[in-house]
């Protein structure tokens, strides 16, 4: 489906996969997919497929990790060796260590960790299939899994990336657009609180473009959180009928 001659935006203004610039890839969300975990979720952004599992609060394996006033949030972002077309070494790469930190920091403002001092909350984000936007899909899946685990949260978070390809701002960049694009702006936030919890920028955007990109991302995040709530509501179907 790659566009001919390296053009990522057609003359009709459509992207290489036929989407409009402000169109998200098809989103699929599911909760409670792993019975062993306290909470779990699967999120798909087009061909990007991410699984999240949450355990805890529980005693951390090493007691030096304990914090006297709150729970520690430990996030492990990992790409499965089969998630990319070239085999990805299963050992944690520099990028995975960084993304683990970025996802943790995107979740920390919403997790009410003060309720469980001296414990650890473990979040595992496993990328099963990567086609761009894995960190934002990871944040979205982790947020759903935390809610599924019953860990108190101030609000649900979701993430999306806005890119710039052929001079056009595009929502939810995939792998092709990410690698050939001019800029990439991953954003995560909690619309219920009006809070941005993750903001990164690769490449260059003008001030005007940045504001426009942030606006596009925010509207998409609002929609993603709506979908998260819909999925959770389906899980508790029947509650309101009691």
């Amino acid at each position: 489906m790659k566009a001919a001659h390296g053009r990522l935006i057609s003359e009709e203004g459509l992207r290489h996969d036929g989407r409009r610039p402000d169109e998200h890839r098809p989103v699929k969300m599911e909760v409670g997919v792993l019975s062993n975990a306290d909470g779990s979720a699967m999120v798909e952004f087009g061909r990007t497929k991410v699984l999240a599992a949450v355990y805890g609060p529980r005693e951390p394996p090493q007691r030096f990790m304990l914090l006297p006033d709150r729970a520690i949030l430990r996030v492990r972002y990992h790409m499965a060796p089969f998630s990319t077309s070239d085999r990805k070494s299963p050992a944690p790469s520099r990028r995975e260590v960084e993304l683990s930190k970025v996802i943790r920091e995107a979740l920390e403002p919403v997790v009410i960790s003060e309720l469980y001092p001296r414990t650890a909350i473990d979040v595992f984000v496993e990328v099963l299939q990567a086609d761009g936007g894995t960190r934002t899909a990871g944040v979205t899946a982790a947020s759903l899994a935390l809610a599924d685990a019953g860990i108190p949260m101030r609000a649900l978070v979701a993430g999306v990336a806005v890119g710039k390809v052929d001079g056009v701002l595009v929502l939810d960049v995939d792998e092709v657009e990410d690698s050939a694009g001019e800029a990439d702006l991953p954003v995560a936030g909690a619309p219920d609180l009006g809070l941005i919890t993750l903001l990164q920028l690769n490449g260059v955007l003008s001030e005007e473009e940045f504001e426009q990109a942030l606006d596009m991302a925010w509207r998409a995040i609002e929609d993603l959180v709506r979908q998260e709530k819909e999925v959770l509501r389906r899980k508790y179907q029947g509650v309101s009928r009691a």
Partner: protein
Amino acid sequence: MGQTSSGGSSRTLVLPGDPVGEDVEARAPYIYVDDRGVKRAAVPGFVDDRGGKKVFVPLESIYIPKPGDIVIGMVHSVGVTNWFVDINSPYMAVLNLQDFLGRPFNPATDEPGRYLSAGDDIKAKVLAFDRTRNPLLTVQGEGLGKIVEGKIVEIAPARIPRVIGRKGSMLEVLSSETGCEIFAAVNGRVHVKCPNPEVEAIVILAIKTIEREAFTSGLTARIRKLIEEEKVVRGVGK
């Protein structure tokens, strides 16, 4: 937000971040007040309007020990003069040998491993807990101590009120229909002691069904029917 009403009460499903309304009592960890003073849900739950009084009922919860709670614990490891007990909580509980024996002990002769080993189940009371130290258990009390018969079923702690039912109605159905002794501990563990294994299997199936279908309408009647049907299928109680 799904909202329906029946029989003078209405329920509204709320999810983390949703405002719950000012007239709902704020109680940690299920409800918090944000920077602008708005009360919001922190876990999935529903706001139950019971004739003007609004109550938040959590659908997911994590068991945090409270002094006085009766819990079912599993011995995790044996210390020199105590046991570390898993009580299905983020915090490992401690049971001291002196408390278990009910008398001062001689470290040379009284070894904890002689009385309880890893994997043993106990019914105990939470004596003290303040989150700065691990919870302390006691087995001094009627019906407390090592569990020597029956089975332990583990379910989500948020579903325990449903296993008990309003004024104990569900427990009453479970025990009267099967003849089993059932104790539902607040930490999400249910101890069942039944006259025979077939009935035990039926009770466990019923408890798992309650966990799965908790908070749906007409559950007590359906559980009664399930037990009756299973008794016919398994050929018990004739």
